[in-house]
């Protein structure tokens, strides 16, 4: 094949999907992990919310399955610069889970089986922006991708979408999580390219 003039393909920006700054498109689904992959049986799985007053709310797997689920198609943006577009997930909205939780907290620290943590403002968990997801492309979520259930917060870099999610601590003060305490940005908006502290 010879060199083809870009003119034959029209303007590249018109054909390429729009990505956040610094990102490239990937078709596969890279597995990033900071440690061993927990194998959490669903009959032992539990999701908890603990408020700033110490009040604890808990859901078993059966409780989660009994809640109304949503299927959403969203784009994923990893801070390591890959983006994957049009991924379909099924899960329970955090709006549903937090509906009857009495809290005035502004901050959340998300905990995973295996010890991982990540922090984000409570408002980023609400208004149809976040889910506890348990199916990916119609199949049970594989452990490598965070199964049996992971947090899905697609408007922030993917490290915020904690795999193997186990609970959320609601806090009056912001507390940095695993990567946020090691140089990564506290908020992590891919469209503002908030990768590292100070970005």
């Amino acid at each position, binding site marked *: 094949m010879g060199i083809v003039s870009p003119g034959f393909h029209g303007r590249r920006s018109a054909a390429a999907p729009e990505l956040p700054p610094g990102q490239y498109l990937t078709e596969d689904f890279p597995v990033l992990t*900071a*440690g061993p*992959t927990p194998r959490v049986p669903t009959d032992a799985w539990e999701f908890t919310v603990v408020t700033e007053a110490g009040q604890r709310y808990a859901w078993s797997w059966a409780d989660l399955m009994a809640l109304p689920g949503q299927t959403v198609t969203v784009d994923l943006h990893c801070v390591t610069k890959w983006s994957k577009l049009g991924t379909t997930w099924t899960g329970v909205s955090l709006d549903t889970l937090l509906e009857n939780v009495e809290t005035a907290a502004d901050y959340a620290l998300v905990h995973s089986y295996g010890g991982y943590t990540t922090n984000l403002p409570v408002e980023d968990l609400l208004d149809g922006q976040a889910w506890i997801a348990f199916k990916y492309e119609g199949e049970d979520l594989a452990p490598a991708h965070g199964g049996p259930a992971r947090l899905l917060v697609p408007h922030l870099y993917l490290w915020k979408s904690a795999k193997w999610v186990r609970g959320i601590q609601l806090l009056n003060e912001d507390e940095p999580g695993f990567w946020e305490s090691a*140089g990564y940005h506290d908020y992590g908006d891919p469209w503002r390219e908030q990768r590292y502290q100070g970005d």
Partner: protein
Amino acid sequence: MTPFHGPYDDGDYADGNALAGPLREIFAVDLTAASGRCAHCGAEGPVALLRVYAHAPGLVARCPSCTEVVMRLVRGPNSAWLDLRGATSIRIPLGVE
């Protein structure tokens, strides 16, 4: 929260020699020859024998005995962040003074 005791799959990790290049950029000595003591279980061993998870936003080095995090290293465009809170001490072999 109380720790989840498993089961776990070990996943994909390298040995601590994967830290040699990135740490050489920061330290004048080769830290993979040093030995560290895990802050979680107290096990002591060479940095080169840590389990390094590199398919991640940074390098995460875990204790081969208890799998807890001993060291984290994040390299940004202008800075590196080194978190050693999982190590109570690092013993670095030096020449005779």
